[in-house]
């Protein structure tokens, strides 16, 4: 495939220069196999070094470069130019978090929410000398939510979070889910208590923007609904019978 000339529209906010965000446009040649991240870096390195963005691994596992690409939250390193419907590439910072500079937002509120749901294994029983046993079915039960990379694509796509930044948000609930349904964990009651708050799972309106935005394809809404159900019934099902692979 041949090179494409892209018009890159970036919502710029440089605090030393701007009082509020404004659009800036750049023209750039891009290979269809390039990632959006490659294109931004090309603009940054060749045209305007002041463009602010975070990035690290560049292949969708570190979660640094979440941004709004053509209107939706994506990781810039997971969108290829060939997948763009037009030659206009619109880039904005993700919603719901304060903008520090250009595409960089303040992640502190996001991580504070994450930390608030006790995102770690709680089990005060003395551990055995080897591993705690866990069947493949029990392991499969929470597999989906172990994949979260804390990129904030989901939380920043959530309409209730745009309005109410005190809402813990989808990512925090996903990480609570990861432990609530882990058969080794004993902290489910504590976490469920936290999520039963006004700013907990009840803020979720099943909008599904989170599920659509997740670059790891985690079933975020499903996880939230499962937590709601655990709250309603007091039953935490730690065993899954979905088809799983077993080491033989």
């Amino acid at each position, binding site marked *: 495939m041949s090179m494409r000339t892209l018009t890159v529209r970036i919502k710029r906010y440089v605090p*030393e220069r701007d009082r509020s965000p404004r659009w800036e446009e750049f023209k750039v040649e891009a290979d269809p196999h390039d990632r959006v991240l490659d294109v931004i870096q090309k603009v940054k390195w060749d045209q305007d070094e002041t463009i602010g963005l975070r990035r690290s691994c560049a292949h969708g596992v570190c979660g640094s470069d979440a941004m709004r690409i053509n209107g939706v939250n994506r990781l810039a390193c997971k969108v290829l130019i060939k997948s763009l419907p037009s030659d206009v590439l619109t880039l904005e910072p993700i919603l719901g978090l304060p903008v520090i500079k250009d595409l960089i937002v303040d992640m502190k509120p996001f991580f504070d929410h994450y930390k608030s749901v006790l995102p770690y294994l709680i089990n005060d029983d003395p551990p055995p000398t080897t591993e705690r046993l866990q069947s493949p079915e029990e392991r499969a039960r929470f597999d989906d939510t172990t994949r979260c990379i804390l990129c904030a694509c989901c939380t920043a796509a959530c309409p209730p979070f745009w309005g109410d930044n005190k809402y813990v948000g989808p990512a925090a609930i996903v990480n609570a889910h990861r432990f609530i349904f882990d058969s080794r964990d004993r902290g489910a009651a504590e976490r469920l208590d936290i999520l039963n708050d006004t700013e907990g799972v009840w803020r979720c309106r099943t909008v599904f923007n989170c599920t659509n935005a997740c670059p790891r394809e985690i079933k975020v809404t499903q996880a939230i609904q499962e937590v709601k159900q655990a709250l309603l019934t007091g039953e935490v099902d730690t065993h899954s019978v979905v088809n*799983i692979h077993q080491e033989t």
Partner: protein
Amino acid sequence: MNYHRFDCIIVGAGGAGLMAALEASKLAGTAVVSKLYPTRSHTGAAQGGIAAALANLEDDTWENHAYDTIKGGDFLVDQTAAEVLCREAVECIYDLEHMGLPFDRTPDGRISQRRFGGHTKPNPVYDPAAPAGAEASKPRIPVKRACHSADRTGHMILQTLYQQCIKQGVTFFDEFHMLDLIMVEGECRGIVAIEIATSELHVFHAKSVLLATGGFGRMFKVSSNAFALTGDGPAIAYRHGVPLEDMEFYQFHPTGIYRLGILLSEACRGDGGVMFNGEGERFMEKYAPNLKDLASRDVCSRSIYQEVRAGRGVGGKDYVYLDIRAETINKYKTSPTGEPVDSAWVSKRLPDIIDFARTYLGVDPIHEPMPIQPTAHYAMGGLPTDVHGRVLRDESGAFIPGLYSAGESACVSVHGANRLGTNSLVDLVVFGRRTGREMARFALDRPFQSLPPKPEAFVKSEIESVLARPRVEPWVKIRDEMQRTMMDECGVFRTEETLTKARDVLVDLQKRYRSTGVQDKGNVFNTGLLEVLELGCLLDLAQATVASALARKESRGAHSREDFPARDDSQFFRHTFIFKDGEGPGRIGYKDVDVILRQVDGRMEPKYPLEIRKY
């Protein structure tokens, strides 16, 4: 001026840094300084597994693991350290499991394990009672030793460690970029860091400082490494006169995505994947008749290069195929059990790999083979340390009080000339933990030493000078030239000629680097400025790599000199220590490899005798 005081300062929040933070903070006041949010660290990109001889699925011993590690490192491995690594790996895996790490499970609920390149055990068919090492001449067979969580093992380790740090209330300084060490009278007393969001300088006064800043794969053009992996720790220590050990050994992973370098885990081959050249030939049969595709990484990478050079790359180009289709695995009977597998099994075992190939190659590995090429992956070399993470002052073995290193930035050396797959994660947890303990113990025993006046002055003037310099040329050009030079002239194969060329180019690049500035003069997230400073680190390390490579006139592990194709144990069975001298690399010293002797028939004999490395 912002001033902070902690007993222990840990720079870098990857696997080693977080593991050390967990240990150190139990005993002493600890803070972690990291230029990324901890969960962005590159430990999270590790895929296939973490080795430990748990023997959950088949017989195995930590001695087997130690033997594989030493042989994998082409015997340039410090054997006591390797034994520490392999013995403590078992305990560390259980520790991680207790912290909540979601390993995949066996049907009876234990940690599942998979095969990995270079992980072997004696073949019981030949000699059931064979002790490790003694059976070198007899072919060994693959063993399931890599504990895993699908192909996201590193992600799970990083997340689990970060979770535990939150639980323990470890103090984090996220997005603080270390720019200098405070070295006084040969001791380390703290660091200077810049708060990226504001460009304010912070002085961290400490009793012990751990550099766990990771690797420096960004000095090569095609690399599996994150943008952040620029070797800040080793480079800054190097500028303070700390030597770098075994810098010539840089591992190229055989299976990187063509042109992008994104890693496709060795687990692909552990689970039965096979590499083919352009003629559809399973070429590893020629180069490693015994282990074939499961030979260690340096061997596979060299084999790919040789195939490409012989014109047998796919379509005459510089790549080959990695094939993980179920029908291929079944055709070559390479599945871990020897039993046939199906596509669903492959999808369950390697979900992320399949996702990467679909996203970045547009290739569906369930139906098609994936184009791959070797990609710069791991630095065996780094800051020389002992098994407690203490950084050595020189080849004599004396320490620098207060300075520690662990993880990829350190060279313990357990990887020798070539790291075994999965051993990087083992290294992180084992030596991260040991170093954390040691640095806290050290800090408890002594008072804070005084800081020099204005410890941040040097950094301040350096930043001011970069900002004040005119932008003579884009610094990106310098970086690209460095990456190309290192890839082409100091890559998988090296000669006197290519290395000399690289050395001269790097001298020129250094000069140009010092004369150009940045466009962005702002204070908020001035990533341009930081990238320039990172480039400076990479240039220094590249020079050290080339100089070390020039000095080692033999081929060993990942260091392949075409003009000296044989291993030369008489001259080079020792570690390289390189020191900085003024602008460039200076004196090179050598330190003997630590060898374990044992008594056999009243005589002292090496426990792991030197042997020709074949797979």
